[in-house]
């Protein structure tokens, strides 16, 4: 048996889907989170022990007439896959808007149940809906649900009703005239009749308590938080607060405890191994696996606190306001209004962020967004940020905050360049996003989001990071003749010989050591690898509490071991964050761009941006701090000029193309 969940955007479909199936699909307090259908079996306790009931979560839609790709997915599924029952999730706080779609679903001949979701919010607002009367008017069962609640949420009743009405016939309460799809006025007339019907139903069943104060409070808050200029410093302060808590206060406190356990485990294994075991095997196990993976996992508490806080921000409705603030800038540089959704999703992981670009119709805007979304600091980049802000900037929350703002600036600058290269400056799109009401964030939802991301972090550490660390350790332990490299002669290792040519290119950026080059290269496999590889190549098992550790090379701290100035460290961080993303994100870019020229151009563009940003940061940072440019300024400048000239050449060609188009249009 197949049950489809359909409803307006942000009505709580995915939350209900998670509650019914026990899955943890991404939810968000803003419209447009779900862009494709998701399936899952109903939990046994809800299905009365039955195991063959599958629920399908569909993207939100306002009507059965597809306007966006997500709406088309929903319409196609309902029309062609013919689910046995449709659960129509209706936002009880917005009944009049939601029922328009309900009346269309009821015309299809598939049994429909209305799940009156967010009923708890209605009660708080003092709005009363006569469920019985609504059911009679719509001629279908109506059940109040609270998808966010663990108890008395109406889900059992919802599923048992779905089982009961399967195969039954329902009479449509409103049958719209079949309009000629090419006649706009005819379609509008049918829609008007439908709205009139919905209005009459709502006026009969809903008693709304008008709380003008509440609305005006929300509006007043939005006038400040989503203000075109004020919104930006507010976002900076909010992010500063988030990074302060996660990286300067609560995060390090938890991390210290956690790292203590990892250190104890390391010491325990070291004790068991004793002196008799081969140094190579010992090094792989202690430095490569436990040390390398431990160095990455040590940041887990910081990352989880950060994820928790970001989930709270999203749940209370703040991130939707950030989208509004940023949307203005994106549209001005030729991106789609919808581009903000992939960018925000990209803060969790670049892969789903890039995948979310598929809802953008315009090819150029879709490809540009797919190319620029990976600039956002994703979850994998957070340990790198945490490492460098901790080691070089005394856990300053400004480092993390700065990275988000640099990412947004690069997205805007990148879009401006690409729009010139493509010569399509005139294309503008409009995207209307409904702002959710502010609400007190759910600690449970934030905890679920934090735990699922934390689990993902551990899985990655235990798979990709672990394997990379083993390979890095082996390559560092042997030379090309497969002889074990002696201590102090690591420069002759396979790893050093591979990384050294790349390191030469990185000298103008302030980090020409082969160890740093090797870490940057492994970062292309997964960004957390930067931390893991640095731990392996410098034999540092712990980046968080380094006081008790004897560090290599006679240095007394990690910064000394790496031999970097603070400016060079910032440049290194920027290079790793703003260059080409990991292979998984590159694969997603390839799939969404559907064009080889765009794909390879995008990779080259990202490399150029990463190199240039790191060059500017290091050279000008060094100039400001020491009064002179850093090492290899002129060769680096030459590389940057060559890259910029190539970009300028293509931009010039694009301008010509735009001029030709404008002439033809005229």
């Amino acid at each position, binding site marked *: 048996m197949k049950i489809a969940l359909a409803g307006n955007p942000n009505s709580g479909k995915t939350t209900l889907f998670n509650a019914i199936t026990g899955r943890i699909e991404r939810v968000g307090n803003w419209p447009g989170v779900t862009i494709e259908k998701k399936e899952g079996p109903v939990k046994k306790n809800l299905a009365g022990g039955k195991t063959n009931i599958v629920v399908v979560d569909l993207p939100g839609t306002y009507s059965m007439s597809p306007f966006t790709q997500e709406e088309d997915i929903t319409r196609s599924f309902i029309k062609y896959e013919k689910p046995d029952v449709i659960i129509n999730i209706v936002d009880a706080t917005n009944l009049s808007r939601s029922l328009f779609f309900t009346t269309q679903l009821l015309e299809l001949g598939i049994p429909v149940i209305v799940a009156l979701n967010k009923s708890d919010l209605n009660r708080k607002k003092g709005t009363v809906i006569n469920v019985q009367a609504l059911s009679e008017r719509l001629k279908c069962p109506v059940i109040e649900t609270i998808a966010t609640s663990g108890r008395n949420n109406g889900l059992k009743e919802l599923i048992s009703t779905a089982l009961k009405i399967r195969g039954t016939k329902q009479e449509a309460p409103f049958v719209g005239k079949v309009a000629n799809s090419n006649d706009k006025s005819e379609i509008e007339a049918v829609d008007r009749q439908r709205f009139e019907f919905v209005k009459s139903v709502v006026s009969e069943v809903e008693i709304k308590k008008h709380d003008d104060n509440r609305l005006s409070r929300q509006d007043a808050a939005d006038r400040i938080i989503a203000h075109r200029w004020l919104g930006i410093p507010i976002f900076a302060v909010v992010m500063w607060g988030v990074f302060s808590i996660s990286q300067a206060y609560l995060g390090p406190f938890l991390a210290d405890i956690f790292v203590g356990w990892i250190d104890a485990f390391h010491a325990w294994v070291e004790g068991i191994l004793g002196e008799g075991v081969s140094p190579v095997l010992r090094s792989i196990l202690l430095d490569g696996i436990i040390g390398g993976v431990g160095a990455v996992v040590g940041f887990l508490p910081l990352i989880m606190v950060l994820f928790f806080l970001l989930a709270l921000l999203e749940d209370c409705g703040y991130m939707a306001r950030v989208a509004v603030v940023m949307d203005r800038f994106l549209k001005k540089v030729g991106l789609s209004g919808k581009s903000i959704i992939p960018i925000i999703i990209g803060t969790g992981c670049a*892969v789903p962020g890039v995948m979310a670009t598929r809802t953008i119709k*315009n090819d150029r805007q879709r490809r540009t967004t797919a190319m620029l979304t990976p600039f956002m600091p994703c979850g994998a980049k957070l340990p790198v940020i945490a490492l460098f802000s901790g080691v070089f900037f005394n856990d300053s929350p400004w480092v993390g905050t700065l990275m988000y703002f640099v990412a947004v600036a690069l997205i805007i600058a990148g879009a401006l360049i690409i729009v010139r290269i493509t010569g399509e400056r005139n294309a503008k*799109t409009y995207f209307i996003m409904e702002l959710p009401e502010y609400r007190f964030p759910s600690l449970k939802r934030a905890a679920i989001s934090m735990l699922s991301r934390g689990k993902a972090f551990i899985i*990655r550490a235990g*798979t990709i990071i672990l394997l990379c660390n083993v390979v890095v350790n082996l390559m560092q332990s042997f030379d090309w003749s497969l002889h074990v490299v002696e201590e102090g002669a690591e420069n002759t290792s396979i790893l050093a010989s591979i990384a050294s040519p790349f390191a030469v290119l990185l000298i103008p950026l302030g980090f020409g050591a082969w160890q740093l080059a090797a870490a940057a290269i492994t970062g292309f496999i997964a960004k957390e690898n930067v931390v893991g590889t640095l731990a392996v190549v410098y034999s540092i098992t712990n980046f968080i509490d380094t006081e008790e550790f004897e560090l290599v090379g006679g240095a007394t701290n990690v910064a000394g071991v790496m031999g970097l100035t603070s400016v060079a460290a910032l440049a290194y961080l920027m290079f790793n964050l703003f260059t080409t993303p990991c292979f998984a994100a590159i694969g997603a870019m390839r799939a969404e761009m559907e064009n080889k020229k765009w794909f390879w151009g995008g990779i080259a563009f990202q490399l150029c941006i990463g190199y240039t940003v790191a060059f500017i940061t290091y050279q000008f940072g060094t100039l400001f701090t020491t009064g002179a440019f850093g090492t290899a300024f002129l060769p680096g400048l030459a590389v940057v000029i060559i890259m910029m000239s190539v970009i300028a050449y293509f931009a010039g060609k694009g301008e010509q193309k735009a001029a030709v188009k404008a002439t033809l249009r005229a």
Partner: protein
Amino acid sequence: MGNIIGNIIVAVILVAIVVAAVAKIIVEKKKGAKCIGCPYGKGSEGGYGCCCSLHNDTEVN
């Protein structure tokens, strides 16, 4: 002799760890994971929404 046995045990443990990591990656890839571990980085499960060529939001030229 003791050292040889010790080395063999450590080598077996290392191989087991590596094999387990590789197996986990293969399982995740088979499940459709595009980004290992990421709970939201999976491809669509039923074909809908997968590389759709239909993109239709509002465009004004």
